[in-house]
């Protein structure tokens, strides 16, 4: 065109270096937090002992504490954090709303109900079958997704993210009530307690749980990263997305379901941990990752670091008492949610 754009404003500062710094800093932080997670606990261990235990050069007790108790726990925390952060980032993209996340959308609650019902209804022999529990969590998450979108649809707000979140909070509250009732008289030795499910914990972690969660997070996270470029287009809105060849309703439904299952996998492993999926993707955007693929990848790293840190705080702040993981993430997440809400209103 004849008239070039004469811009009085200066260009934004280059983001590449800021993003590189964010990656380097995040990786370093995650590494340090993982080591701290192995060293701190009921029996504090010096770093040299931790490293010896990892190499297999420490005594039997130390090796057992590090390898069998703490290592699965910190690795599971990292996986759950990464999964929740990616799930939140994808949900925010499909719903065009930076406040969306699996916990607030009731998806995690649905998954928890699915898992709890599988344990409570199944006979004692299969009551603890991890695959059955994870499968039920997937079904619960899918049902919650349908119910939440159904409520929002009936309320007249098809695609209205505020209504969806309201419906999600209601479904989440209902899910908590179901868990309370289902686990009221559960024998403690067979079924993890209602508080475990409702507030989240990685204290029961073992390598089996870690393996299953790692497979789910890797597979479902890979699907979301594969779909990330579509998310950039979907974020433009329905008609512009269509003009660029993306059916945003259909693609959005697929991404919503995959993100829900990713959240469900974390719920089956660690119960309900809220707000990670809300805070971390927004943090990744603040650090300069705007397109969905770099944003979700960075969010996975920071989500992992955040949850390892939260778990470390959960077992050291009031030791020997362990605090629920979800309580700590909520303490960080709720003020963040309110500040975002205020910024959105102004």
């Amino acid at each position: 065109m004849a008239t070039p754009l004469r811009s009085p404003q200066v260009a934004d500062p280059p983001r590449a270096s800021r993003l590189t710094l964010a990656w380097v800093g995040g990786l370093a932080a995650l590494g340090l937090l993982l080591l701290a997670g192995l060293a701190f606990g009921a029996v504090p261990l010096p770093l040299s002992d931790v490293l010896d235990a990892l190499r297999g050069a420490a005594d039997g007790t130390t090796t057992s504490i590090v390898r069998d108790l703490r290592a699965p726990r910190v690795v599971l925390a990292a996986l759950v954090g990464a999964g929740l952060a990616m799930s939140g980032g994808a949900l925010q993209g499909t719903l065009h709303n930076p406040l969306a996340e699996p916990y607030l959308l009731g998806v995690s609650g649905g998954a928890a109900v699915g898992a709890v019902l599988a344990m409570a209804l199944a006979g004692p022999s299969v009551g603890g079958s991890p695959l059955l529990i994870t499968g039920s969590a997937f079904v619960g998450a899918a049902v919650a997704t349908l119910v939440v979108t159904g409520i929002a649809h009936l309320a007249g707000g098809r695609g209205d993210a505020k209504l969806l979140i309201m419906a999600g909070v209601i479904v989440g509250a209902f899910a908590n009530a179901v868990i309370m009732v289902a686990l009221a008289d559960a024998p403690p030795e067979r079924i993890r307690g209602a508080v475990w499910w409702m507030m989240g914990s990685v204290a029961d972690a073992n390598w089996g749980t870690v393996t299953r969660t790692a497979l789910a997070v890797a597979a479902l996270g890979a699907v979301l990263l594969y779909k990330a470029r579509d998310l950039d287009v979907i974020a433009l809105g329905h008609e512009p997305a269509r003009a660029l060849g993306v059916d945003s309703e259909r693609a959005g439904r697929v991404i919503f379901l995959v993100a829900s299952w990713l959240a469900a996998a974390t719920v089956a492993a660690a119960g309900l941990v809220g707000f990670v999926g809300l805070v971390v993707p927004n943090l990744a955007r603040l650090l300069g990752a705007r397109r969905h693929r770099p944003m979700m990848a960075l969010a996975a790293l920071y989500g992992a670091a955040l949850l390892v840190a939260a778990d470390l705080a959960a077992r050291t702040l009031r030791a020997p008492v362990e605090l629920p993981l979800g309580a700590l993430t909520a303490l960080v997440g709720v003020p963040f949610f309110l500040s975002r809400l205020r910024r959105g209103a102004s």
Partner: protein
Amino acid sequence: MSALHFQHVTVHYRGSDRPAALDISFSAAASRFTAVVGPNGSGKSSLVRALLGQAPLVRGAVRLGDESLLALAPRELARRVAVVPQREEPLLPLSVEEFVMLGRHPHRGAFGAPSPHDREVVRQAMQRAGVYEARDRRTDRLSGGEWQRVRIARALAQDTAVLVLDEPTTFLDVAHEMAVFELADELAGEGRTVLVVSHQLNLVARFAHHIVLLNRGQVAAAGSASDVMRGEILEAVYDWPLVVTRDPAVGAPALVPLRGRARDSHLGRSGAGQDGT
């Protein structure tokens, strides 16, 4: 080839008592600048939605050459026809260059960095739309006019034989408005099929080779500027007194609406304020 044919297009939205478009037929030929004009609610944007498969098409077809557009997968459609929709907000705070690169989406795979060809097409698109200097700025910090041209650049980056612009000059000042029409004319001159939906009758009269005038969902007149831009036709369609004179500079027909009529009938008329149907 890449002529766009609207054949008996009839669009009827659920809950509406009359079709938004009724039996509309016309063609936008390659190497031609075709314009669709008409009052608010006359069915202009329904045509664009029908083309994207986004409107309930109860009868008729939109064809590209002899292929039905509805039979094409959305991605395939986006490789052949680029559409700049009427309204869009900068929801994702990308840089201008990243945003224009989204125009390459239908051509790119799911992974991998943009190819040198992608980068070159995007650079040319930004240059042609006059936003190359702004390539590092954020789309949510642009003025309305800049944002409009960045969207046009994205459509150019799709590198299609057909370009559809729905109200491209909304928010633009005179110079930028002229620049958009000049660009559309240039693109048609290079062999592309250019279809512009516009309210700017006088600009359309100067630039378009073929004008389709819609009224209440039907074709009221079609042809060259001198066929369509006639006082008796436009006065009846727009329901407002006006005269058609000659543009003193280039001699094209020019419309001058007259004053002195009660506005109440228009401002009170149902649907009068609803654009984009």
